[in-house]
C-alpha cells in the first residue's frame, strides 16, 4: 500500500476481503505469505502488538464504558496518565463528538457510534487504520455525508486507511486506490478511473457499474484491440494483454452508447425503464442485450440506430 493512501478492497460477499483485513489485524493466521508494515514483518505478532487498529462493522463499542472511556481505551491500556484527557478530547473533536463524551454507546445513534468507533481507533495513532464495511449499518442518506467526512479526515491525518466494502459507489467515492477481488483472488488494482474505464476482465467490468458485454474473438491486439463480434468488427483500447484468436468481450457502458445514432448498429427497444433522472433503455442488437441511457423513453418494439464512442469503451479478457 502506498503511504498515506486510502485503499479499498472491493468485491462481492465471500470473496475474502474481510479475511484479509482480519489477517492484517491479527485475528486470523495466513497459511502462506507475509505481512509487512513499514518494512517490519508483523505477521507473527498478536493483535495487541501490531500498530494497526480496526473499525469493526458493528463498531464493537464497549457498552459498559462511556464514550470518553471508549475512545481513551487504547491509552488506558498503555497506562499513560495525565496526557490522556487532552488526546481523548482531541480525538473527539476530530469527529465532532465532544459534547457526547459522557454518554454511553447505547444512547447514541448509528452515525454517532460509527464516529466514536473511528475516533477510538485513531487515538493511538496507528500506522494503518482498517475499516470493515463501516457504513453498512447506516441509512443511505447518512452514508454519503459520513463518507465525505471520513475522506476529509483521512486527508487531514495522512494515515493510511485500508477499507473493505462491497458497495462500488462507496469505493469510488473514498479511494485513492482500488483492489478489486473475486473469489479469493485479486482481479485488478488501480485508481477508480482506471478500474472503471479499463477493467482487467469481464468480472471487474460487471462489478463496477452497469455494463453490457459483447462477446467476440480477438483479431488483432496491441494497445488497441480489434474484436470480431456479432455486431461487426470493433476496434477499441485493450484493458488487458490479449492475443489474436482469444475470446474476449467488448465492454459497453450505458453512458457510452448513443441511442438514435449516429452509429453503425441497429437495435430494437425491448423496454424503457424510468430511473428518476433518466431512462434506461433495454435494447437488443444481433441477439445481444445492451443497455443505454436516454432522456426520453422510446416505445418498445421500435428499431433505432445505435452509436458508441470507441475511445471510452474497452476490450478486455473473459473472466475465469
Amino acid at each position, binding site marked *: 500500500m502506498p503511504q498515506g493512501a486510502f485503499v479499498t478492497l472491493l468485491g462481492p460477499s465471500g470473496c475474502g476481503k*474481510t479475511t484479509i483485513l482480519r489477517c492484517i489485524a491479527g485475528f486470523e493466521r495466513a497459511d502462506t505469505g507475509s505481512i509487512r508494515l513499514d518494512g517490519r514483518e508483523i505477521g507473527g505478532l498478536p493483535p495487541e502488538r501490531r500498530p494497526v487498529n480496526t473499525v469493526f462493522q*458493528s463498531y464493537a463499542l464497549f457498552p*459498559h464504558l462511556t464514550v470518553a472511556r471508549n475512545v481513551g481505551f487504547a491509552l488506558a491500556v498503555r497506562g499513560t496518565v495525565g496526557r490522556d484527557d487532552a488526546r481523548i478530547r482531541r480525538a473527539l473533536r476530530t469527529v465532532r463528538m465532544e459534547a457526547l463524551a459522557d454518554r454511553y454507546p447505547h444512547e447514541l445513534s448509528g452515525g454517532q457510534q460509527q464516529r466514536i468507533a473511528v475516533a*477510538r481507533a485513531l487515538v493511538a495513532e496507528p500506522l494503518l487504520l482498517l475499516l470493515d464495511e463501516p457504513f453498512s*449499518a447506516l441509512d443511505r442518506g447518512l452514508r454519503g455525508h459520513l463518507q465525505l467526512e471520513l475522506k476529509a479526515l483521512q486527508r487531514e491525518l495522512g494515515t493510511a486507511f485500508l477499507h473493505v466494502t462491497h458497495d462500488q459507489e462507496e469505493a469510488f467515492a473514498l479511494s485513492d486506490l482500488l483492489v478489486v477481488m473475486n473469489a479469493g483472488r485479486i482481479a485488478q488494482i488501480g485508481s477508480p478511473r482506471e478500474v472503471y474505464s479499463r477493467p482487467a476482465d469481464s468480472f471487474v467490468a460487471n462489478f463496477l457499474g452497469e455494463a453490457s458485454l459483447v462477446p467476440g474473438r480477438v483479431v488483432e491486439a496491441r494497445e488497441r484491440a480489434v474484436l470480431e463480434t456479432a455486431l461487426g468488427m470493433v476496434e477499441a483500447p485493450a484493458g488487458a494483454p490479449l492475443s489474436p484468436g482469444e475470446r474476449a468481450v467488448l465492454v459497453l457502458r450505458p453512458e457510452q452508447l448513443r441511442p438514435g445514432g449516429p452509429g453503425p448498429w441497429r437495435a430494437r427497444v425491448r423496454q424503457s425503464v424510468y430511473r428518476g433522472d433518466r431512462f434506461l433503455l433495454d435494447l437488443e442488437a444481433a441477439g445481444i442485450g445492451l443497455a443505454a441511457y436516454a432522456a426520453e423513453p422510446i416505445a418498445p418494439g421500435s428499431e433505432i440506430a445505435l452509436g458508441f464512442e470507441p475511445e471510452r469503451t474497452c476490450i478486455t479478457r473473459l473472466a475465469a
Partner: protein
Amino acid sequence: MRSGRRLLLPAVAVLYLPIAVLVLFSFNDAEVMALPLSGFTLRWYAALRANEAFLAGLLTSFRIAVPVGLLAAGLGLLTALGLRGAASGLRALVLLLLLAIFLVPKSVLAIGQAMLLQLAGLSRGYWALVLAQATAFLPFTTLLVGAAVLRLDRRLEEAARDLGASPLVTLRMVTLPLLAPAILAAFSAGMILSLADATLARQLAGPVQPLSLVVASAFQRELRPDLNAMQTVLLAVTFLVLGLGLARRHRRRRAARPAPVEPDHAARRPGPRRSAGSIAGRC
C-alpha cells in the same frame, strides 16, 4: 392469551402458602399453631435475642454461606470461561461431570463424601461442608455465568485486543465487567442454596451447627412458634440477599438497555442497529 395468565395468581398463592403459614404463626400469640389466630405478638422474636443456639446457628450459617457463594461463583466463572475455548472432547467431559453432579441425589453424595473423608482420615466439619456445598451448587453457578458468557459479543474482546490489550488485560477491562451481573447472580445463588441446605449439613457438618440443623433437631420433638420465628428470620435474610442481588443487576441492566435514540444532526433518522453477533465474517 390472557386466560393463561389468570392461572398464575393462584399458582403464586400456592407457592407462597408454606411461607405464609410459617411467617403467620411466628407472629401469633399462642403456643399451638392452629387457626383461628390469637392476636399479634413479637414475643417469639424477642425470645430469640436471648437464644444462644439461634444466634450461634445464624452466624454459622453465614460463615458457611459466604465462602460457599464465593467458591461456587468463582469456580463457576472459571469453568464457564474455560468451556468457551475448550476442545469439544474436554467440553463434553466437563459438561457430563456437571450433569452427573446435578443428577446424583445430594443425600447419596453426602454419604459418599462422608465415607471418603473417613477413608482419607479427615474429619467432618466446616471445610468438609463448604467444599461439599460448593461442589453441589457448581452446576447451577456454571450455568448462570455460562449463559452470560454465551451472550458475550466476541467482537468486543477482539476490539480490546486490537486496541492494544493483552488477553489478560482484555479479561480484566472488558470481559469481567460485562460478566459482573451474572457473577453476582451466581454468588447470590450459591449463598441462598447454602442457607437452604440441610441434607449436606446433616452428614458433613460434624460439630458445626448451621441454623437449619438447629431447627431440624428441635422440631423432631414438637412444633414451636419460636422455631417459626427463627426460620422467618432466616427467610428474611435469604430474601434480603436475593433482593440485593436483583436490585444491583436491575440497575446495571437498565443502564445497558437502549434508550430512545436521538438523531444525528446530519440525518433525518438514525441508522438501524445491527445485532453484532449476527454478522458472521463472510469474507
